[in-house]
């Protein structure tokens, strides 16, 4: 799988990261090298090996469905970059 500048441009778009044309060659080279490191895994036989997504085998515990955090609107809005009338303000979404 060859990694080109187009690949990285596409991945950056998926990840919602603006990458300038000037930055593109360096990222492409570095990510290609890192992915190259990963090629060695292909040779490992893993048929029948259950994928491991977590270090501890456990079921998700349930808890009582209770309200624990009451109204914290002011506290939560305090970190917002742009607020109006108790709401987060964003650029126009629908043309």
């Amino acid at each position: 799988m060859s990694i080109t500048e187009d690949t990285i441009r596409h991945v950056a778009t998926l990840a919602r990261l603006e990458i300038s044309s000037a930055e593109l060659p360096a990222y492409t080279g570095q990510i290609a090298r890192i992915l190259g490191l990963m090629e060695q895994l292909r040779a490992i036989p893993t048929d029948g090996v259950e994928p491991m997504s977590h270090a501890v085998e456990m079921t998700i515990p349930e808890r009582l469905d209770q309200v624990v955090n009451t109204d914290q609107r002011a506290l939560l809005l305090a970190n917002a970059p742009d607020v109006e009338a108790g709401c987060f303000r964003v650029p126009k979404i629908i043309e």
Partner: protein
Amino acid sequence: MDASIPTLVQAVEALQQRQISSEELTGACLQRIADLNPTVNAFITVDAEGAMQAARQADQVRAAGGGGIPPLTGVPLAIKDLFCTAGLRTTCASRMLEQFVPPYESTVTARLREAGAVILGKTNMDEFAMGSSNETSCFGPVRNPWDLARTPGGSSGGSAAAVAARMCVAAIGTDTGGSIRQPAALTGTVGLKPTYGRVSRFGMIAFASSLDQAGPMTRDIRDAAWLLQVMAGHDPKDSTAINQPVPDYVGALDRSIQGWRIGLPAEYVQSNGLHPDVRAALEAAMAVYRELGAEIVPISLPYTQHAIPTYYIIAPAEASSNLARYDGIRFGHRCAHPKDLKDLYARTRAEGFGAEVKRRIMLGTYVLSSGYYDAYYRKAQRVRRLIAEDFARAFQEERLSVILTPTAPESAFLLGAKNQDPVSMYLSDIFTINVNLAGLPALSLPCGRDAHGLPIGMQLIGRPLDESAILTAGHVYQQATDWHLAVPGCAS
């Protein structure tokens, strides 16, 4: 300048016996921070006012006397700037969170506060804990107190440097691929990564959720046992926190290790990248353990060499998902004058994240993307199981109490030596990341010095939830040696 800042256990004893007040001890730490932080850069935020207020309160609690005085009452600690502290800025060393003041408290810091600890401030780190040298911090690198031209390691480099330079009594770090243990090794301190799930992750800013774990960073093993005793335990706010009783770590320290079987994995000792000075220090430590009555058992962990590619698929995959929340809408940085929502997202994230974080987000996005998911992510998850089974098999078949390895392939490297080449930086984690993938407890403790006089660390790995074994093995070693008592030049 003196090195009179005590260890945690010494501090507790001195406070109990009224030889010192918390106000005096906290004031002394703040003075050392004022003196040393301009060069070492271990702290991002120093909360002098909050710390002095907490210290005075602690002194009142002790003066009031009676039973039930919390164990850490009046002990000044430093906290990695990745734990949310209500009302105290928490940046994760990122421009993205430069102004972020958490509305809630992490479980770890809440437990430390309930135990009476005084929080001095928030320590520097690699941005979002992604790095092994502390050079990805947007607040500039931390410098190693043993040699200011060198890295203290990462990502918990600020916590490690603060402990080594006696700017605090002890500190808290986090470890996703070695971020507690590698900086501990490079600064001559002790760092413990508990079993995954032993300590609550609630209020820790997430990097890779299946690997992240918080732990103590201290001058000696006894201090680490004291802190873990407070930090460990179930938490209903973290569904991955293990619901098992917390054993008496401190009480278990003074056991004999006579007859213990200590595994020595061939793949670590024969690793090409292992510096001869580190190998020599490890061999000397093995001799100490034999003298203490333990047996060194050669073992093999054949999947060791696959840990780096496995980790650098899984961790960035989880990171790309976790870091999707930084979108410039509800909190954190937002770019100026966005022309539409897409532009807002893309420029906010371009401005807010540094290069290493962007690299890992793109890497994670790539390995999770359609067409590559099975080849990379699913494959890595399967190899992860093989790596975990390596350890389980060795512990069981060889009836091991602990496994002994080097912590890092070499001592502290020069700032700037690896930060232009991500792959060479990633190789710094070669001996630590396996443990995160397997979810096991492990600690690093000092075991020698190299030709430059820089500290060398060794790693003890335990069975799941057997932090007691690695703490005991570390403690008996420290009773027989004095590497942990050395003080770096800038702090003496």
